[in-house]
């Protein structure tokens, strides 16, 4: 079953209606960014009016907007812009909006790179397990060799990566917070580590206590949600901090959290600490110096995954493509029709959709491991394109060549094997090489089904260091190092094997 994410659609509508962003903001507005795809209780499209958003982060933003401006010019009106969650930091520095609020985590890197507000909510990183594992697993240390899922580019993901080295668990990064729990229920992963709000929401969705999974009471770590502003906006940040402290003192923040059913005693303790200390509490954990060198091994590993996925997919595409092409050239009518339908269906629908269908859609019938699903989806997709190349190449072999072979007494199969095939290969090699370069780049799509390849690893790296400049350049260099030699090869083949007149 594909989990219907109607929020994605409404999120798009929201995005369209607010694309002007902060550039068009009047002085009376506070333009804030969040991700409605993150859903309730953070930010979600209002079911009653999908062009509006609701959630506790929405109300926090509205409370901040009301409190801003104090004596000078009065309150502001909050206006929402839709931003993909993992891009909030980059987007706020670009000036797309003024304040990012959407379950944004307090991390040392974020504090170093941007103007970050005081924490306004305390969350617990909690483990979700299948009920039968609840007696055996109590923390990350019990998960040696097990697959643990979380959302990419989060504190939870960093915790899992750190635990990979210490306890030997296998971290899996997802692009959303719904599928990790779905895959936990299906047995594809053994545990999920995420914020308790997200875990409890997933538990409700799966049918409450006694459902598909249980949540381990003892948290793995504690974290805080903060607002993020552009580094240059530290003055405004101080005003936002003042409003947040005011909202903690006057109880309005507590009311918001109670309304959304996320209030608990630890929030009161957090408020006390924050209101007492004038300077913001420091983020959990010491800031790590993150240099490019530290990321090279993981980028190299991810590049290996990209190369392996591409290579295996291309092999599958060539084999299936040859079958499709010969069916289309030599087969009986029904087979030709069937292959034509397959080719047009595959070429006419997005690869992304095919990935989802093979990984999630087929999960009820066969639970393919992510890597296998990625190779299958890419391979079967490219097979359609390969088939058309081979068909064109087979049909491009001049007829006299085939007739000469017939007059010599070769059978049809021998003609294909000894004359038509080898000659068609010459026509096909250059376009095949081009296709392989395209596949290499399309392989980045498989990150949506938890395969961490080069682009995904780069995105994780970029989120951690808070900039795309170095990671982007490194990533591009690695892709080019793989694709340029291939492109060169294609040009050489084209020159050398230009068919004889």
């Amino acid at each position, binding site marked *: 079953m594909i989990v219907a994410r109607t929020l994605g659609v409404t999120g798009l509508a929201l995005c369209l209606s607010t694309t002007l962003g902060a550039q068009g903001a009047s002085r009376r507005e506070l333009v804030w960014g969040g991700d409605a795809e993150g859903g309730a209780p953070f930010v979600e499209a209002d079911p009653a009016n999908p062009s509006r958003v609701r959630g506790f982060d929405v109300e926090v933003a509205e409370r901040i907007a009301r409190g801003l401006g104090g004596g000078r010019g009065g309150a502001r009106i909050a206006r929402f812009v839709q931003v993909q969650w993992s891009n909030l930091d980059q987007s706020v520095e670009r000036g797309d909006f003024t304040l990012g609020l959407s379950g944004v985590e307090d991390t040392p890197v974020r504090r170093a790179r941007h103007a970050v507000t005081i924490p306004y909510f305390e969350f617990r990183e909690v483990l979700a397990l299948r009920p039968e594992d609840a007696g055996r697993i109590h923390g990350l240390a019990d998960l040696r060799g097990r697959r643990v899922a979380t959302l990419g580019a989060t504190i939870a993901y960093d915790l899992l990566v750190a635990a990979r080295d210490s306890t030997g668990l296998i971290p899996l990064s997802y692009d959303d917070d719904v599928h990790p729990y779905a895959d936990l229920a299906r047995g594809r992963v053994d545990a999920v580590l995420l914020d308790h709000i997200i875990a409890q929401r997933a538990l409700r969705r799966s049918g409450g206590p006694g459902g598909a999974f249980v949540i381990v009471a003892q948290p793995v770590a504690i974290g805080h949600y903060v607002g993020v502003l552009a580094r240059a906006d530290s003055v405004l940040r101080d005003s936002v901090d003042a409003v947040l402290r005011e909202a903690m003192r006057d109880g309005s923040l507590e009311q918001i959290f109670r309304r959304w059913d996320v209030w608990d005693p630890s929030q009161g303790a957090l408020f006390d600490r924050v209101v007492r200390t004038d300077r913001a509490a420091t983020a959990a954990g010491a800031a790590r110096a993150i240099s490019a060198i530290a990321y090279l091994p993981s980028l190299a590993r991810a590049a290996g995954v990209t190369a392996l996925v591409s290579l295996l997919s291309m092999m599958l595409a060539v084999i299936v493509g040859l079958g499709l092409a010969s069916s289309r050239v030599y087969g009986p009518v029904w087979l030709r029709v069937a292959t034509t339908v397959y080719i047009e269906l595959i070429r006419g629908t997005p690869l992304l959709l095919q990935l989802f269908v093979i990984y999630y859609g087929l999960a009820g019938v066969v639970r393919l491991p992510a890597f296998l699903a990625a190779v299958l989806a890419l391979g079967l997709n490219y097979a359609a394109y390969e088939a058309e190349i081979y068909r064109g190449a087979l049909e491009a072999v*001049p007829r006299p060549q085939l*007739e*000469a*072979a017939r*007059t*010599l*007494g*070769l059978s049809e199969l021998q003609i294909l094997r000894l004359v038509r095939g080898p000659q068609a290969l*010459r026509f096909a090699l250059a376009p095949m090489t081009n296709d392989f370069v395209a596949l290499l780049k399309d392989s980045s799509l498989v990150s949506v089904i938890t395969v961490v390849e080069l682009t995904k690893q780069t995105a994780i790296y970029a989120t951690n260091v808070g900039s795309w400049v170095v990671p982007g350049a490194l990533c591009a260099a690695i892709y080019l190092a793989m694709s340029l030699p291939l492109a060169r090869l294609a040009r050489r083949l084209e020159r050398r094997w230009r068919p*004889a007149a």
Partner: protein
Amino acid sequence: MSALLVIDRLSVRYDSRHVLRALSLEVRGGEIVALMGPSGVGKSTALRAVAALQPFDDGRIVVDGFALAAGPVPPESRLVPLRRRVGLVFQAHALFAHLTALDNVTLALRHVLGQSRSDAEAVATKLLASLDVGARATAWPSQLSGGEAQRVAIARALAPNPPLLLMDEPTAALDPARRGALGTTLRHLSEQGRGLLIATHDTEFARGHADRVVSLTT
């Protein structure tokens, strides 16, 4: 001596237009017959019908006892005896572009007659030498001159040792000196007992080298 090839009232129509109308001729072993006529008169069509590369609408073709009837071309599996009896040299030679001259000649020996590679290469090397292109055995078709390519194509057609050899416009790309040499080669082949049917519009070549001329008119 009975005829190697009998064409009896052969007719071919394209969209109700006659390309060939009731062509009859015979070729005996040891005989060179020229099929003459201007371009478009159906000379190539007649050769292609004899080689079972295209269907014909009326008449009958018998090659050394193997008969082809009017109607669609039979499947290759039914044409094995014909393929052993007829060799065809195409006007543009149609050498296999991905194989060397030698491998063009050994292809049928190895894969149709089942000879070993070394046996096939020995036969092919001798054939190429007898046609004066022994030195070009390792060349690719794109590296051969027009005359060389033609002689390799003749060697390829002769490799399975067919009694009947068909040639389509063999002098089209040859200078006068080469034409004379080709005539000598053809005579040599006919002296081995083969029958040769040459489609050509080259009157001088036909008069100089053929035993008999059959003229087609529109």
